[in-house]
Each structure stands twice: as structure tokens, then as C-alpha cells.
């Protein structure tokens, strides 16, 4: 009976001009956003490959120089763009796409597209995620607000109930009918998106993106299920279809427009992040005085010198069998690494706490959970930015160790020293592997839990209110 009801709902919707027009608009926007996303992804991917090759070439062909000069010459690490970021750019425009890896410093990321955005772009960018998170729920509201209230006003509800149709079957049938109509929109869009990814990145990357796409789809299905169930519950509960529409549009605005901004402000006020200036100043101070403020650089260098003289049983630096400058530089790196680890761990812990606030608020607005899942599997959320930043920093440290080790081993304490291409080639090219879908799924467990809770509660509410609704 549920599928019979669903079939009739779909037939009616497809024949309804209002559905055809609104579905066509949503489909056009979705297809358009995917096309724009595809163009953006292809462009960024090509730029990334070219820039990564260029920085590698520059490193290998920098000529003869002191290894520490080479360490300052440094390299760029470019964050690769994930195929599914054509659906959701996430935090990428704000976190930056490249980081300069040099001696002594764990630099901030550079080149944030949001900095170059025009005023219009800052107002809101059309992406697949915008359509899926904002416009699809609006379409669901428009399709379902009169599902029960409208039938009650029309009189068909009495006709149905007089036949002995179970209200729960009616609610589930309507839910399946709306879901089926949405799938008519989403399936072609998904096929088009898959073709776009394959064309832009090749079959191998597309295959690798499939598990992520599967998880992302599951997240969106739960989100749409929550909206369908909730909208049907409101329609069954409301005294009129007008009241149902007003209530649902109110929730849609809260969920899609108000909650994301409010959640950011609430999270920031509960767990404030330091400004870039404060963060930089704190780190400078820690580098100078030690992570705990009681280990100044001069004292460290003095102790290193004393320890080495004692170890090699000599009375002056020039007599050391190892290069003192290299030892001092590596010691400085080790100290810096400790400071960076401490500072970034603190900063990222604040971000994680802010993220936890978002998760809690998602209990009131499921769009927050859907957004988190979407960005997560698109590979454009903060944890994956942090994952890349960690990989880049590990590479920087390896590069510094290699340069300093060469200095320690080969440089003299009394004469200038230059290394050449052989040393540069010893440093492998930077290669980054994004975390697997399961890693992201583990990060998104609570978001999935919240969406599943919303979906089940909304469908249960639809069935419950349908059982108790006034027939007229």
C-alpha cells in the first residue's frame, strides 16, 4: 500500500506544473553549480600540478650554495584539490592553498581565494553544496507542506481514511513519493557529477573518490529524509496548509540561513580563537624564551657549546670534529618544532572545540551536521586542512634535518661550505596522500549520528502526527 501511495504521489507531482517548474529551476542550478565546480576544480588542479612541478624544479636547480641558504630558499607545498570539492569548496577559500616551507618557521598558509573575492562573491557562491543544503530542502518544503493539510482542506483525506487506509501507511507512502520525485532530480545530477569528475581527474581519482561520494550521499539522504519526515509531521499537525507553510519556511530559514552564522558566532564566543597577530606574537616570544618562557636561546646555545666541547674533549669551537653551526641550527629547529607543536596544538584544539559546539547546535539545526559531512567527504573541511598542514610540516622538518645533517657532517668550522645538486636530489619531492574515506567517516561519526537521529525522529513524528491528525 505504501508504494501504491508513493506512486500516486509521484504521478501527481510530475503532472503538477508547479513541481515541474521548481524542479527544473533546482536542477538547472544544481547542474550549473556542478559545471562551475568542475571548471574551478580542473583549473585549480592544473595550477596545482604546474606549481608543484615548478617548485620542485627550482629546488633541484638552485645551484651550489650553503645547505642552510637552501633551507631558507625552501619549497612551496600546494594543497591538492580533492575531486569532490567540485560539490563543496568548504573552508578551502579561507584556509589557503599553499604553504612556504623554510628554515626556522612553520609558516601560515598563503593564497586564500576568499581574499581575492569580489563583494558579490562574498555574498554567497553557488556550489552544489548550496543547492543541496539550501534549495533542495526548500523544494521539499514546497512539495510537502500541504501533503496532509492540503488533503484535509480539499476533502480527499476523509475519502482516504474512510477506505480504511492506515494513517501511518499514508505518511510513509507520501514520504517515499516525495523521496522518489527528488531522486528523479538527483540521479541525473549525480551521473553528471561523476562524468565531470572523471573528465577532470581521470578514472583512477574518480575510483578513489567513490567511497567518499557514497558516504557523502548517505549524509545527504539522511538530511533530506529528516526534512521530508519533519515537513510531513508539520503538515499533519498544522491546522491549515498556510500555517504549515509558514512554520516550515520559518524552520528552513533558521536551519539554512540563521543557524550557520549563529553557530559560528556562538562557537567563537564560547571558545575564542586568538587573532593572527596575537598568535604570531605568542609564538615569537616562545621561540625566543622557550615554550615555558624560561629557556632563552642564548642560554641554550651556550649549553650546546659547553656540552659539545666536553663531549669531544676540545677547548674551542673551531677544534670540533663536527660543524657547530649545523648542530646549533638543528638544535634551534628542535626547539622551534617543540614551540610550533605546542602553539598549533593549542590553536587546533580551539578549532576542535568550536567544531564540537557546531555538532551540539546541529541537534537544533540538522543543516549544520549535513554541512560538516559534505565538507568532510569533499575533502575541504578543517581537519583535512590540518592533516595536509601536518604532512607539509613533517616534510619541512625532514628537509631541515637533511640540510643540517649535511652541514654537521661535511662543513668545516673555519671555512665556507657549499653543497650542490646531489644534496638537493636527496630530498624527495613532496607528495601528499589525502586521508581515506574511513578516516573522514570516523571524524564525522557524531554528525552522522545527529542526522540519523533527526531522520528517524522526523519520520516517527510524521507517523505519530498522522495517526492523531484531525480528518477535517
Amino acid at each position, binding site marked *: 500500500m505504501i508504494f501504491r501511495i508513493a506512486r*500516486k504521489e509521484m504521478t501527481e507531482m510530475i*503532472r503538477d506544473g508547479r513541481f515541474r517548474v521548481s524542479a527544473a529551476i533546482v536542477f538547472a542550478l544544481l547542474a550549473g553549480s556542478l559545471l562551475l565546480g568542475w571548471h574551478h576544480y580542473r583549473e585549480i588542479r592544473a595550477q596545482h600540478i604546474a606549481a608543484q612541478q615548478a617548485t620542485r624544479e627550482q629546488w633541484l636547480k638552485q645551484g651550489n650554495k650553503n645547505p642552510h641558504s637552501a633551507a631558507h630558499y625552501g619549497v612551496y607545498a600546494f594543497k591538492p584539490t580533492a575531486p569532490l570539492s567540485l560539490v563543496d569548496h568548504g573552508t578551502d577559500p579561507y584556509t589557503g592553498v599553499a604553504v612556504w616551507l623554510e628554515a626556522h618557521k612553520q609558516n601560515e598558509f598563503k593564497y586564500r581565494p576568499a581574499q581575492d573575492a569580489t563583494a558579490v562573491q562574498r555574498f554567497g557562491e553557488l556550489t552544489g553544496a548550496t543547492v543541496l543544503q539550501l534549495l533542495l530542502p526548500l523544494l521539499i518544503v514546497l512539495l510537502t507542506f500541504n501533503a496532509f493539510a492540503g488533503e484535509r482542506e480539499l476533502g480527499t483525506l476523509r475519502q482516504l481514511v*474512510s*477506505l*480504511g487506509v492506515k494513517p501511518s501507511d499514508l505518511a510513509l507512502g507520501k514520504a517515499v513519493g516525495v523521496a522518489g520525485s527528488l531522486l528523479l532530480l538527483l540521479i541525473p545530477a549525480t551521473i553528471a557529477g561523476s562524468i565531470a569528475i572523471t573528465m577532470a581527474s581521470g578514472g583512477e581519482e574518480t575510483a578513489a573518490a567513490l567511497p567518499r561520494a557514497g558516504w557523502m550521499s548517505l549524509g545527504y539522504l539522511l538530511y533530506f529524509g529528516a526534512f521530508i519526515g519533519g515537513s510531513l509531521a508539520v503538515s499533519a499537525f498544522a491546522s491549515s496548509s498556510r500555517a504549515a507553510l509558514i512554520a516550515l519556511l520559518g524552520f528552513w530559514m533558521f536551519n539554512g540561513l540563521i543557524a550557520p552564522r549563529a553557530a559560528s558566532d556562538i562557537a567563537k564566543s564560547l571558545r575564542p580563537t586568538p587573532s593572527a597577530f596575537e598568535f604570531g606574537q605568542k609564538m615569537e616570544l616562545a621561540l625566543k624564551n622557550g615554550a615555558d618562557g624560561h629557556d632563552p636561546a642564548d642560554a641554550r646555545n651556550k649549553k650546546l657549546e659547553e656540552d659539545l666541547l666536553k663531549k669531544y674533549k676540545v677547548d674551542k669551537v673551531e677544534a670540533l670534529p663536527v660543524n657547530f653551526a649545523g648542530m646549533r641550527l638543528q638544535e634551534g629547529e628542535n626547539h622551534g618544532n617543540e614551540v610550533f607543536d605546542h602553539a598549533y596544538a593549542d590553536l587546533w584544539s580551539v578549532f576542535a572545540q568550536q567544531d564540537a559546539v557546531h555538532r551540539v547546535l546541529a541537534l537544533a539545526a540538522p543543516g549544520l551536521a549535513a554541512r560538516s559531512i559534505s565538507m568532510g567527504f569533499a575533502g575541504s573541511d578543517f581537519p583535512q586542512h590540518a592533516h595536509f598542514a601536518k604532512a607539509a610540516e613533517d616534510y619541512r622538518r625532514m628537509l631541515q634535518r637533511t640540510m643540517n645533517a649535511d652541514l654537521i657532517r661535511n662543513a668545516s668550522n673555519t671555512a665556507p661550505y657549499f653543497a650542490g645538486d646531489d644534496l638537493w636530489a636527496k630530498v624527495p619531492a613532496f607528495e601528499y596522500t589525502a586521508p581515506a574515506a574511513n578516516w573522514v567517516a570516523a571524524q564525522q561519526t557524531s554528525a552522522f549520528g545527529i542526522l540519523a537521529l533527526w531522520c528517524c525522529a522526523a519520520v516517527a513524528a510524521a507517523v505519530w502526527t498522522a495517526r492523531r491528525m484531525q*480528518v477535517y
Partner: protein
Amino acid sequence: MFEAIGLSKTYNGSAALHPLNLKIEPGEIFCLLGANGAGKTTTINLFLNFIAPTGGKARIGGLDVVDHSLESKKLLAYIPEQVMLYRNLSGIENLEYFTSLAGGRHSKSELAGFLEEAGLAQADAEKRVGAYSKGMRQKVGIAIAIAKKARALLLDEPTSGLDPKASNEFSALLKKLSGSGAAILMATHDLFRAKETGTRVGIMKHGHMVAQYATSELGHADLERIYLEHMHD
């Protein structure tokens, strides 16, 4: 088939239906007469279990409509003042939908046959009901009852607003259904139609069943006179 035993309904302390005792056998057409607010629609809604009784019981085919809500509905068909259908579906699609929800499975030709039996031309059956007149929609309602092989029919002013010809056709269909053994309870304002169609009439006033007559015992003028006498009391 229909049985009301001390059936009553009160809204906020105000009685919409005082305890009603009524029995309608298969083959009978019982017409409920009365002014607006007399309790006719309340009685029908109680049999449909659209509203819960304050007291007493309503039974269809021996089944309590509250305790056996779904089972009792399998026995009946309901035709309201305006049979409302899905305007984006054709007459035959509406019939197929409603009968399938009632548990029936019929071929397209069978469905067309039911509509024809109810008086709807085949060409009209294929049209979307957005273009139907009230009379055509009422015929689809009858076709649902025919297809469902309903043994009990509840009709709430079904001929209101129909032209005399359509109204007469509708009465003929009801007689045919009762002739096949269905029990019919019909609320109406139309005294002429009640006399012509019904086997019994009951006059309701302020929630009370004040009188019952067999239509065979009365002429049209008698029924009108008795009805008006009750209304003036």
C-alpha cells in the same frame, strides 16, 4: 448493517447528538432529515469513526467502529456532499487509486465498467478530474462503492447542488445498490429525494431523533407537512 446503540456526542458540554438508537438492515435506505446542526453529519462522522463518541456504540456489520476501525471501514463506502478527487489524475486513475487502497485489484476494463455502471461515459473517464462537474465526481464516488462491493454506504447530502436530472440518476444508482443488498444511511435536506429514494426517513432536531417513518406510509405532501411541524415545535 448499521447499528447505533445509545450513540452520543458532546462538544464542550454541548450535546451534538443525544443518545441515538438506530438499526438499518441490508437493502434499506435510511434518510436522515433535519436542519443544519440537527446532528445528521455528526451521526455519519461517528459511524466513520472520524470523531470519537462521547457515549454508546456505533456498529457496522456487527463491528464496533472504534474497536475495529480499519475492519469496519472495509465494509463501507462514503460519499460526502462533494466527492473530492485528485485533479491531476483522470477519473479512472482516481478510481484505481481509491479501490487499490481499499484492497481491490481491478483491470482497466473492469474499472471502466464500474464507471460506466455509475453513469460516467468512457470518454470522460479518461479526462483529468480537474475538469469534472460535481455530478461527474459524485459518479466516481458511486463507482468506488460499486468497485469496493460496499455493503454499507454513508452519504452526506450527496445530491446537494446537483441538477434534477443528475440527482434523479444518482437516486437510481442508490436504489440499484440497495437492491443488491447494501444498507444506506443518507443525510439530506431534500425531502422529495428522501421520499423517492429512501425506504425509511428519520427526522432529527437539536441532536435528537424526533421521528421515524417508512416512506411507503407517506406521500410527498405528508412528509413535508410532518417535517415542517417538527421544525416549528
